[in-house]
């Protein structure tokens, strides 16, 4: 649905994007993660045909963003990282205006407006002036605006930034709803835990370069050097460490809150073998669990060795 090929953008002497490539298949939610200034907004603006890349190409549903911006705009809903609201208009008028800009027939516009206000939970605010809405409500209205022409692809630039936790949860619920409707969503954020739960794919970008991209679990696996175990023992920590250290699959050992954390290479069978070795050596194991490598962890690893 979205294909980005060797996208490079150079501003003067600064390279904002350096040969960025990724693909997002239909129906996926792609989390675009990176610190501020990494190139997320630049990539999304190029995808929205609002900016020309210096080199490289990008396609939205087969349409070249540079050569066929009109076709791209038909298929795409874009929500920038700012509200972009007009004074003196009510929520319903605001949506009606954009629906008209997308050439929706007048007869259909009222239904579109009503449906979208309901989707984002603003039906009771339809006659409230847009500039008097709270930040969270404005953000929801902007999401509704991006949907007025029922696009197949949604580009959401930092949709959760500046929102309180409740508003974030509400935004996440709306996005899940949109996923169920079959939309392909690209969502940029630096708030990582949200993306782990919401996204099916992620791309990690830093200093204009793509550090990793793919399915969430694949990226985490790709970026974490091994799997980790948390082992609790009954008063025999020294002995346990002595048993574990010589094992070839163990990379590193550390003490965390009274337990031992062991980084190892292998699968579940390897973990079972480690447990067996410990118990065979007479160590009383009271706790044995695998630690999930989080997106945050993957992200930190991906960006820490940046030049």
């Amino acid at each position: 649905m979205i294909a980005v090929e060797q996208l490079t953008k150079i501003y003067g002497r600064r390279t904002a994007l350096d040969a960025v490539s990724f693909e997002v298949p239909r129906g996926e939610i792609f989390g675009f993660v990176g610190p501020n200034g990494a190139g997320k907004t630049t990539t999304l603006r190029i995808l929205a045909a609002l900016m020309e890349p210096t080199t490289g190409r990008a396609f939205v549903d087969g349409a070249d963003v540079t050569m066929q911006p009109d076709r791209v705009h038909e298929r795409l809903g874009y929500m920038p990282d700012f509200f972009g609201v007009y004074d003196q208009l009510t929520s319903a008028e605001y949506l009606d205006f954009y629906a008209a800009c997308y050439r929706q027939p007048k007869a259909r516009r009222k239904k579109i407006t009503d449906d979208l206000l309901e989707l984002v939970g603003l039906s009771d605010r339809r006659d409230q002036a847009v500039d008097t809405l709270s930040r969270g409500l404005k953000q929801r209205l902007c999401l509704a605006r991006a949907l007025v022409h029922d696009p197949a692809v949604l580009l959401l630039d930092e949709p959760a930034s500046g929102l309180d936790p409740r508003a974030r949860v509400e935004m996440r619920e709306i996005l899940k709803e949109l996923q169920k409707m079959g939309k392909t969503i690209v969502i940029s954020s630096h708030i990582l835990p949200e993306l782990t739960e919401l996204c099916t794919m992620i791309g990690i970008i830093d200093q204009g370069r793509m550090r990793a991209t793919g399915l969430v679990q694949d990226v985490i696996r790709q970026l974490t050097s091994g799997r980790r175990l948390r082992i609790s023992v009954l008063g025999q920590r020294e002995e346990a460490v002595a048993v574990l250290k010589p094992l070839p699959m163990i990379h590193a050992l550390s003490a965390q809150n009274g337990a031992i954390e062991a980084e190892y290479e292998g699968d579940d069978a390897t973990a079972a073998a480690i447990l067996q070795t410990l118990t065979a050596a007479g160590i009383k194991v009271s706790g044995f669990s695998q630690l999930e490598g989080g997106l945050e962890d993957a992200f930190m690893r991906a960006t820490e060795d940046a030049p």
Partner: protein
Amino acid sequence: MNPIAVALWNPIVAKEYRSRMRTWRSPVAMTVYILLLGGLGWAIFSSMTFTARNSFNAGQGANYGQGLFLYLILFQMVLLAFITPALTAGAISSERERQTIDLLFVTKLPSFSILWGKLLASMSFVLLLLLLSVPIFSLVFLFGGIELDQLAAAFLVTAVSALTLGIIGIACSTAFRRTLPATVSAYGAAFILLAGSLLFGLLFPTDIDPKATAAPAPPAVTYLSPILPLITIGTNGPVNNYGVRNGNNNIYPTGGGGMACSTTPAGVQSCYPIGPNGAFSKGIVARPMQASGTTIPSGLFTGWQYWQATVTMQLVLSLIALIVGAILLSPIRHLPWRMRAAAPVTT
């Protein structure tokens, strides 16, 4: 939808009307405009009544009518020169500052429609102001001296000048990212159009060719200013004492030589070659050259009315500014030399 309908079709106009008319600024602007124009009309009217009381002369009414009309129409032009750039110079730059321009770019509205919609919304407010001034101008008909066609021509010149200023304002708004420099440049352009072009006529007047068979006319650049045609319409006579080197202007009454021109009350201008001391030159056959009424006697627009030349030049200028504005506005410019083949990719 056909291409013309697509270009003209515009939800921006409706939105702009809605936003504009919901603020207190619009009624205040209209009130101030009418008060200023009406105030000037009333002041001139009072002064004329006073003069007429002291020295009544039947037949002076027409002169009073012309005088009142001339003052009003020139003042209206100056007022609009202040108002129009203010309406349009922020049209695009304020969208940029408010960060709403990207949201318009990603819709199906072509860049030209965005520009056109903004222009239409601003110019219809100017048109409203012009309509509001009609009752004030009807005062002129109490005195006579001005025909309806003169009024129509003067309003056309004023409207086209306001349109030109509006389009230049929009182009400035597109070229500059911030409203302040856009506004400053739009006012600069308005000054150049109204006063700068007239100044050009003073600094670089037309040199008289003694062998010419037609009366001299100011340089064509000066027709850009609406002031010149408004004066010719208001006075219903040719432009004298301006834009021609040592003609019948009285700056160098005894020097230079050249042409001497005189105008009959019927508006017929006759010019004769004169010597350095203002006497008829010996050896040069004096050929009377006539410039009748308000037509341009020579140059690029020979035989045109001044207002026709002004309207034509301003419309050309407007078209250029509109095209420049549309090219500058597009986020991705498809210039012919930058085209390359698009190869769709299936994902």
